């Protein structure tokens, strides 16, 4: 790397080229005298010159020497003169910077400014470098949204040709965006369009975000967002006519106006596929095409179809495939016909995959995510899929996958540049919930342990009636296979005040999970646990009393999950079905078999409404012995709103304690809708109906109430995905209940993760 001092254009004084060396030629140089060099020793000046003793006075060489001396950036001015046979080099050195100071900067500290500029104490001062630094400071302020900041460099001369440099900064006002308006939009409301933009209107609760600051690049990005949104809604001729940002009358903020020309809405016309690949019947690929004739035009569906077709054709063994959609736009009856042209792509092979920037993550942890190996046929869809998989590791801030020409015309080198992100997390959580009371949780997690892609998590949780310590470790590619394996250790204690007995659980588990298909996952888990029930109050139920003491549970558990939901943690569409089997009895004192089936279905209505329908059923049976209270099913609290935890189900007559049921079924219907805060506050209202029942227990039938008739509760609720965490409040009104059930109107949980 060229040292900082030598960068920058030629020294000041002569702008551009040096003055021509007006030196009479002829005769040889007997002596070279350097004048004016104080800091830079003469030896250095000579070493940069292209001419030395005994050479003739050759003007071209003198000129080169002059230029190279300037390029060092060390000298303000250089002149060559001839006295007899001595060449006199007169230099005026650029001053050296003694100290750099910043004045008037409130928003950005000195430390950040120093990091941004190039000049440093003890570095050579040149006017061009000062200008560059002024520009750098302005860019920094522009990024913070202060467009009318000004920077004035001041120079204080010192002895020994040194200077102090002071940047006088006037930060000017922050330029926020007070309003975003749209002109020409009939199809969609301003609110919906605003939801598509990265720029947002400034408002009080956005004190921490910078998305409401005027930034021309982000506005340009927003034009693209709008175009993509309209294209996915069928407006093929959509155009953003203009984006105007004027200062508000009081000059404190900007008003942004997007003028759009929506154009007509198109439908898909005739869709067909033709291919030039040998013995490939295009019709077999018909179901991979997502675009159906008659549906509204949607650009994203076209891309998805291309991906699906590439994948399908790839699987049939055609490595080199190039699929291009040709559109036939029919303006009269507003349809867009599509022809997918499948033809032979260029025959290119991957020569090498080079991975750079992985300072912490091991090479193989990244390489194993690749859908291509060296020597394979190059395929853009697979490359894109590989990039997505590396991105999903969430180990990196930036992932760049590019390919460059290889050693032969039909070979390419794939270059992966990653920038590591910090994958260690220390998260503190606090919360209050009706079932557990006040709750605090500390968790230390490292998602990329030792760069090997392994996940280690240690959590401590303390609440009103329980304490918990858990440790879990996961290796995503056990023995190099697509099999994630891991172990968990846990120890928790519970002081049950409702069913007045204390419980201590200590145990560990081994687990392994794999993808059966793209969307189906199967997880197996073996768990060994020692459970102790003690301090059983004399008013406790007979069942609990019989379970006092220590039991060992050794169980094997299987869960099959078929997940087609869209929208991550808070799905808006799709469905998920899961079936779990737990057999406890591989040794140990307790033997039972438990099965549970769950299904959730999310149906989007309009733009922002979601109808959620959920169902669950469970059945368990003791093997050669009675089932125990702590293993049975409980409903209530957050699992059945309108009733307290365990409020539904068999209840001991004498102690009035819930003792859990051997079977249960439960259904939920919920309509979720935004609560008129321009969906900026991310608050969702919901009306829900929970129905279900828990029944059946072992032991003396007369000692407890029990009923399998369904209970029903309906009510309104609120979920706020606040920046500090999820806040859920539900009011449940039980319509149908049993006499002995325990109801509870309000159920809330406020979990904070910060």
């Amino acid at each position, binding site marked *: 790397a060229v040292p900082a001092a030598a960068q920058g254009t030629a020294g000041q004084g002569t702008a551009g080229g040096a003055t021509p060396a007006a030196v009479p030629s002829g005769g040889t140089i007997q002596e070279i005298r350097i004048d004016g060099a104080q800091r830079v020793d003469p030896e250095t000046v000579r070493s940069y010159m292209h001419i030395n003793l005994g050479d003739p006075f050759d003007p071209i060489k003198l000129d080169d020497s002059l230029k190279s001396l300037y390029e060092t950036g060390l000298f303000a001015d250089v002149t060559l003169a001839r006295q007899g046979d001595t060449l006199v080099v007169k230099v005026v050195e650029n001053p050296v910077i003694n100290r750099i100071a910043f004045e008037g900067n409130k928003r950005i500290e000195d430390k950040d400014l120093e990091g941004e500029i190039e000049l440093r104490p003890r570095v050579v001062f040149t006017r061009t470098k000062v200008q560059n630094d002024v520009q750098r400071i302005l860019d920094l302020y522009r990024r913070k949204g202060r467009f009318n900041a000004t920077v004035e460099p001041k120079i204080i001369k010192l002895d020994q040709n040194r200077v102090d440099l002071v940047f006088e900064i006037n930060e000017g006002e922050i330029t926020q965006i007070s309003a975003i308006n749209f002109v020409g939009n009939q199809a969609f409301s301003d609110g919906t369009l605003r939801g598509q933009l990265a720029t947002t209107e400034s408002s009080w609760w956005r004190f921490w975000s910078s998305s409401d600051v005027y930034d021309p690049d982000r506005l340009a990005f927003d034009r693209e967002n709008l175009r993509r949104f309209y294209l996915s809604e069928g407006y093929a001729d959509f155009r953003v006519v203009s984006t105007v940002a004027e200062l508000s009358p009081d000059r404190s903020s900007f008003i942004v106006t997007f003028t759009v020309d929506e154009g007509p809405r198109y439908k898909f016309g005739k869709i067909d596929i033709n291919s030039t690949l040998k013995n490939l019947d295009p019709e077999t690929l018909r179901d991979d095409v997502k675009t159906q004739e008659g549906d509204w035009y949607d650009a994203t569906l076209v891309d998805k179809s291309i991906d699906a077709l590439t994948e399908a054709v790839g699987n049939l063994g055609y490595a080199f495939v190039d699929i291009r959609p040709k559109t036939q736009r029919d303006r009269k009856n507003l349809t867009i016909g599509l022809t997918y042209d499948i033809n032979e792509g260029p025959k290119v092979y991957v020569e090498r995959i080079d991975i750079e920037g992985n300072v912490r993550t091991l090479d193989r942890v990244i390489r194993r995510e690749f859908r291509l*190996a060296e020597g394979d046929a190059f395929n853009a869809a697979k490359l894109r899929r590989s990039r997505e998989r590396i991105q999903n590791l969430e180990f990196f801030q930036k992932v760049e996958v590019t390919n460059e020409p290889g050693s032969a015309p039909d070979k390419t080198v794939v270059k992966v540049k990653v920038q590591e992100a910090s994958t260690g997390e220390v998260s503190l959580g606090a919360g209050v919930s009706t079932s557990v009371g006040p709750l605090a949780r500390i968790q230390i997690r490292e998602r990329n342990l030792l760069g090997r892609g392994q996940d280690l998590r240690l959590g401590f949780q303390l609440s009103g009636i329980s304490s918990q310590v858990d440790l879990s470790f996961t290796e995503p590619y056990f023995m190099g*296979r697509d*099999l994630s394996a891991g172990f968990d250790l846990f120890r928790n204690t519970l002081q049950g005040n409702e069913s007045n007995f204390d419980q201590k659980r200590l145990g560990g588990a081994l687990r392994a999970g794999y993808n059966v298909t793209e969307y189906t996952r199967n997880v197996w888990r073996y768990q060994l646990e020692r459970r102790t029930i003690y301090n059983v109050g004399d008013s406790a139920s007979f069942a609990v009393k019989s379970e006092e003491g220590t039991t060992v549970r050794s169980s094997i558990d299987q869960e099959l999950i078929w997940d087609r939901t869209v929208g991550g943690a808070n799905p808006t569409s799709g469905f998920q079905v899961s079936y779990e089997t737990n057999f406890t009895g591989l040794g140990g004192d307790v033997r039972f078999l438990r099965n549970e089936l769950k299904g959730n279905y999310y149906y989007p209505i309009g733009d922002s409404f979601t109808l959620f329908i959920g169902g669950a059923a469970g059945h368990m049976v003791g093997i050669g012995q009675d089932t125990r209270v702590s293993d049975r099913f409980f409903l209530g609290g957050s699992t059945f709103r309108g009733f307290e935890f365990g409020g539904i189900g068999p209840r001991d007559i004498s102690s009035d304690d819930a003792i859990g049921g051997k079977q249960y079924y439960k259904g939920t219907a919920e309509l979720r809708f935004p609560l008129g805060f321009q969906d900026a506050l991310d608050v969702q209202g919901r009306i829900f109906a929970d129905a279900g029942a828990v029944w059946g227990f072992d032991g003396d039938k007369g000692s407890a109430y029990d009923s399998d008739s369904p209970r029903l509760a309906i009510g309104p609720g609120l979920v706020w995905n606040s920046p500090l965490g999820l806040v859920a409040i539900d009011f449940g009104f039980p319509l149908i209940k049993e006499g002995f059930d325990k109801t509870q109107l309000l159920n809330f949980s406020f979990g904070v993760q910060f």
Partner: protein
Amino acid sequence: CAARVAVRGNLPDPEQVAAVLPGQSSRQDVQRILGSPSTLSTFQANTWYYIGERTEQIAFFRPDVIDRSVLVITFKDDGTVDDTKLYTVEDGQEIAMVDRTTPTEGNELTIWQQLIGNIGRFGSDSGIKKPGST
């Protein structure tokens, strides 16, 4: 459940292989028909290899190779094809890799370093360092 089919390396079609005629085709013909060789022989200079396979993988089991072709093309000194040989998956042997590896230096990242984020030094003893010591 569906098995994931993958094509690895350069798997030329039978017709393309048939188009390579010993004694007539030259290196350029082979290059045109089959593309650049997947790899050259390590020690025989005028031998080209075209290696490709189709694998099928179910869940996390090892992908089993359902079809492999190792096409070996040797050239005479005058550049024309001397002979072509095709090995298939039957010729392959199950080889157990020796798990010994040649040792390498380099700072292995320890848990402690990961937590405090700096990476230690390479190939030098601790204590006061005098540059020039290996």
